């Protein structure tokens, strides 16, 4: 399949990917709980979130991490090109029970170029995810293959 590996032109160190704004509501948390099988009540119950000292219901770290990767999968066009993806869960995304939820801004920059084991070009992409002015993922990085 042909996927647009470089929608904005040639890929260089410093290339910025098109940014992404993600809105997470309580419904999104419930949907992710069902899809992932992670029914930890801190992701849907104020009662349990308060019991463990959280300021409110928080998004699954894996939901934040998985959603943030869209900035990369949208760019490379094919999720099969993602070779590695890592992140620290530095701060939970608190999702209020209202109509707007939480907003996460995701930006990404190419920080290195390389060659894969099969000789194709690869890019290391550094990802930032920010909610309420605070970074919610730390050292988030994905390595992708640029050639199909």
């Amino acid at each position, binding site marked *: 399949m042909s996927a647009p590996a470089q929608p904005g032109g040639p890929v260089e160190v410093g290339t910025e990917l098109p940014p992404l704004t*993600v809105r997470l509501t309580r419904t*999104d948390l419930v*949907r*992710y709980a*069902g*899809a*992932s*099988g*992670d029914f*930890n009540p801190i992701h849907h119950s104020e009662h*349990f979130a308060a*019991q*463990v*000292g959280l300021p409110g219901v928080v998004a699954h*770290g*894996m*939901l934040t*991490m*998985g*959603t943030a*990767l*869209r900035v990369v*999968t949208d760019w490379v066009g*094919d*999720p*099969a090109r*993602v*070779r*590695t*993806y*890592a*992140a*620290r*869960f530095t701060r939970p995304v608190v999702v209020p029970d209202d109509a707007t939820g939480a907003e996460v801004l995701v930006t990404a920059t190419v920080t290195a170029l390389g060659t894969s084991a099969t000789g194709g070009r690869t890019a290391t992409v550094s990802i930032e995810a920010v909610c309420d002015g605070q970074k919610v993922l*730390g*050292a988030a990085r994905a390595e992708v293959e640029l050639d199909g």
Partner: protein
Amino acid sequence: MPITQAHVGRQYPPTPAYEVSAAKIAEFATALGETGDRYRGQDAVAPPTFAAVVAAPAWQAMFDDPELGLALHRIVHGDQRFELARPLRAGDRVQAVLSIEKVRSRAGADIIGALVTLRTTEDELVGTATATFFHSHEAAA
């Protein structure tokens, strides 16, 4: 009995085979807001972080290990890394094997590094999921 460095190297039996379905891939992609055609239909590939869904039963088995003395409500996922040899696809039957790679205890918490290796039932390596969990001690919770 609390978790200690003596548990480094402990490995658990493979989880029961998880059969990846096209419907589950589509459901998971939708939950991440991934709308692309690559995630839909019989030739669908899973979003990279779907590996966590297959790894989760292996994590749970470690959390439930009575010898480690862990309490689920005091465990926080600290970081996560995926290395994928290829994407998961509908029809894959995948087993997860967890080994404890690292245990550090500091004031109030244990830091646990767990490596999960994902292989198909035909013994093809699909990838690994490396996680760090923080387990806070009772007094600190």
